[in-house]
């Protein structure tokens, strides 16, 4: 139930971005760090219009947010197996954190 409603909702994100070339990248939250393609990352370069799917792979909650002007968002708490997407519509730097685990930081450079 929960899964379906979030899935349906978030797949609409991609459709609504309007950028045909935009790609969706998956960033996992694993061992309390940000992981892409199996390796821990501290920074990530993406293009305007790209979507990041934040996927929780830890057996506990994460709470990912950004206070950066380029893209302010708060994904709230979500458990293992769930993911949420964010579309990055402006160029600039975005500092992404987890409200629960203070060491979790990811800098996204939107170009």
């Amino acid at each position, binding site marked *: 139930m*929960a899964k379906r*409603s979030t899935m349906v909702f978030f797949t609409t994100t991609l459709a*609504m971005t309007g950028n045909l070339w935009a790609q969706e990248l998956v960033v996992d939250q694993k061992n309390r760090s940000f992981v892409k393609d199996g390796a821990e990352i501290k920074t990530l370069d993406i293009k305007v219009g790209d979507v990041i799917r934040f996927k929780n792979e830890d057996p506990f909650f994460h709470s990912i947010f950004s206070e950066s002007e380029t893209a302010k968002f708060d994904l709230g708490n979500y458990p293992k197996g769930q993911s949420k997407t964010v579309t990055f519509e402006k160029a600039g730097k975005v500092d992404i954190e987890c409200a629960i685990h*203070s060491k979790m930081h990811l800098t996204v450079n939107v170009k």
Partner: protein
Amino acid sequence: MMLKSRKYRTFNRKDLLAQAIAFGLVAAPMVAQADAGYVYEAGHASLKEWLLPDAAPSPDDNKYSEKRANLGKQLFFDPRLSGTGQVTCASCHFPERGWADGLPTAVRFQGKNVGLATPTIINLGYNDVLMWDGRMPNLEKQGFAGQGKPADINAGSTVEPEVVIERLNKVKAYVKLFEGAYPGEGLTRESVAKALAAFERTIVSRTSPFDRWVKGDKSALTEQQVKGFKAFVEKAKCVTCHLAPNFNDGGFHNIGLKSFGDADHNAGRFKQMKRKSMDGAFKTPTLRDINQTAPYFHDGSAATLKDVVEHYALGGMVKTNLSPSLPQDIALTAQDKDDIVAFMNALTSEQPMFVYPVLPQN
């Protein structure tokens, strides 16, 4: 409320609201599964993640040396480090009380209550967040701030920390010890902080019965303690936050203590991280040597480990801002509770008799 901070321009507000409601309603009671996949046998490979590294890691500009740790030990026990000349770090963090003080909340010199429990110093070198609200990233920064005027050792004093440093510089033996331990750095607030940190990193617990069992000694844990470990991981899901290897997660949670219901409750992590979920959230503490440091929780509200387990069995008491990771309805039997307490009693390392330092006089 939460919606205000959400600004995805791709969504309209109605969608957001529907999503937030759907997610909030169905996701909130869901607690992540602790699927640790352990095999509960002494020495089993699946348990190795519980073993702590031999030494707590130290930063490049304060690598461990015996000279540094010994000097830090003297400073930790030296009242001349305080403005009044009457308080030491060990006035609250004393070795015979698991490096805490046995009080519900700390009491400063001249009687003022700090309003927070004194945490243990044990295994802090393995952590990357310090203080109940996580405002310090490492022991060096804590040692520097800990010499400041509002710090606990300076209660009742109007003396500036620089004056304390001048005072210590008059003790020639100290100047010499600093030259030996930190050549060319002098005796400064920074080098004092470094020495304190070097000493604190030596206060470790990693040879408990549990550690010996993880390494393969079958007789190190009783059958009840093994059952308690299993309940700690699976049924009670304590391991959701008290993770390997140091029984903590570098994170902050509101676990629904009664004091959170007070109008003037301590906001905890919220003071550093202005997000609603962090109101009343505090650092997950280590559970190593935990039977040495009663009473428990940041407000000292649990007198015994049994009380702690009873609190979790209720899923917290004030549930207005609970961590989503705090299990609800875990239905622990009386036996489960006793087993978990028995397990926590197996987390204490046997330590050699502590030897107090001799302080340099002049």
